[in-house]
């Protein structure tokens, strides 16, 4: 059993390890190690295409995470007041949203957006005062943010709601009892209590969007995110530069995930034992 588990872990992590090791390879060819060097990191960071893709990715990740965090937190708070059958339906929909494969979300979002644009664009054009100059809605950064934000919102709702549900209701009553208005209670008691979950939700949404290839591939239009850039360069062969990019993305994602976990765990044990 031990050996089996070890084999599984090796199978999972050796390719990642190889990428990280080869990103420091001094030689040009991915097949043989020729000593240590960080030149590929420098090359990757100096590549304008990489930098542009990175910028797109960062913009999309930050915007969609912000959107998802705000909408998700509000939804989680609102769901507190919902019970019975409607609650069950909402719960089921949330978990489905998280479990549906990315490719399904990618295709369906693409179809939905394209249908919507086909319907809206003529309408805008017909209402536009000067013929031929009407703006066209198209796929791009906007649709990336929308698709990622929508998906990540389900994540945020699940994380924040777990925290809201675990909150002692009597704290809210105690606050009201001491004269705080409903908004005062929200600001001084509810928000500080659920802040770790909100922050963790934001970080997870950010990494999700930053790393996502499948959904982005369908809805990006002419935009290039970092994963899409990596994918298209790989068709021309794996270069150490790609390894360096992959390693950097991995490092950033891991750091953010660990940070999110730490925040969630710390937030959990801060309540008194009794």
């Amino acid at each position, binding site marked *: 059993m031990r050996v089996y588990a070890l084999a599984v872990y090796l199978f999972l992590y050796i390719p990642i390890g190889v990428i990280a090791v080869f990103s420091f390879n001094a030689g040009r060819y991915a097949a043989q190690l020729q000593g240590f060097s960080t030149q590929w990191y420098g090359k990757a960071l100096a590549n304008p295409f990489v930098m542009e893709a990175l910028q797109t990715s960062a913009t999309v990740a930050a915007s969609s995470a912000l959107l998802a965090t705000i909408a998700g937190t509000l939804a989680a708070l609102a769901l507190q007041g919902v019970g019975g059958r409607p609650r069950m339906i909402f719960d089921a929909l949330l978990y489905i949203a998280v479990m549906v494969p990315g490719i399904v979300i990618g295709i369906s979002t693409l179809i939905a957006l394209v249908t919507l644009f086909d319907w809206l664009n003529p309408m805008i054009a017909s209402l536009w005062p000067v013929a031929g100059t009407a703006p066209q809605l198209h796929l791009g950064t906007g649709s990336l943010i929308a698709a990622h934000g929508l998906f990540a919102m389900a994540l945020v709702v699940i994380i924040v709601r777990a925290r809201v549900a675990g909150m*002692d209701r*009597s*704290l809210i*009553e*105690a*606050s*009201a*009892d*001491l*004269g*705080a*208005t*409903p908004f*005062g*209670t929200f600001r*001084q*008691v509810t928000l*500080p*209590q659920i802040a770790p979950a909100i922050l963790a939700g934001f970080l997870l949404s950010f990494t999700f969007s930053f790393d996502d290839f499948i959904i982005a591939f369908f809805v990006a239009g002419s935009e290039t995110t970092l994963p899409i850039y990596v994918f298209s360069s790989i068709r021309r062969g794996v270069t150490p530069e790609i390894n360096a990019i992959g390693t950097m993305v991995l490092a950033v994602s891991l750091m953010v995930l660990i940070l999110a976990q730490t925040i969630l765990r710390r937030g959990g044990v*801060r*309540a*008194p*034992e*009794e």
Partner: protein
Amino acid sequence: MTGNDDSPIAELRGATKRFGPVVAARNLNLTIRRGEFLSFLGPSGCGKTTALRMLAGFETPSEGAIFLDGQQVNDLPAHRRPVNMVFQHYALFPHLTVAENISYGLRQRRPKPPKADVAAAVERALETVRLPGFGARRIWEMSGGQQQRVALARAIVNEPKLLLLDEPMAALDKKLRHDMQIELQTLQRQLGITFILVTHDQEEALSMSDRICIMRDGQIVQMGSPRDLYDRPKNRYVADFVGKSNFFDGTVESVAGDSAKMTGPGDVAFVGHAGEGVAPGQAAMASVRPEQISLSRGAGGVPVTVVNRIFLGEHTEYLVRNPDLGQFLILASRQAEAGEGNFEPGDTGYATWRDGAALILNND
């Protein structure tokens, strides 16, 4: 707006609270006097917390009305009522320090009181609950008893007109609980705030309260001073709840004024104060407190055999048996023991009580 000293601080008028099919409080009528220490006593689920929550503003009565200081407050939300509550599990804010917890109520006031005043009030409150210098601590760095005192300080610092305490000592061990009971009582006299304490500990209610309100199934059964309830319980339920007692079944022989005579098993006669609804010829119950019965070796009275003996220090509690009356308790003082000597399990003797020592109650 504020009434004079004779007007009640709070009132429940026909207050009923339903949760779906459950009636948690049924037609409660209660007047709370300014400055008194009142206890709600009753078994789990009898509606004590519900009554308190209606006063605090967390529940709106389904029927009837709540009055605070002469004003109907049914629709006044909790945050606008001049009432503070100490929660059963304290409900201290874990993300705030002890001092921030205590100042919370003052900081909600508009216009905001000056920072220096708030800090001074917090320091005074900490001193009152004997926790000076603990302000900077975190809640989880405090012991259970200390947390309880922080919860108390957080409430009293606001100088509420009415302080509600929902089993504040339930989580404490016996010794600490006793200390806190004394502190709470002292504090109440010192501050002159009206206290309403919820408890299902009869000793706690008896020792601390000016008046006790005994509840059952969402209703008030009897209300009165601890002595009233102990000496003149209305029915068996109250007699059973307040202090220890022996109960004997029988039939009412005669009623004269507020006194009745009952014949129990083996034709033993019980004479004493008649409770509510006791009438001649009816089945009833005699309640005799263990300390009202004396145990002696000389003949006369009910012959008994000692079954068990528990030494309680100042007193000794005997469990005795009579073929007709069954088992009952006798509480003998040290003095009585000095006269009669110790009884060992298996010894025989005679149990006697004065006429008038019994209470004749209906079977409710």
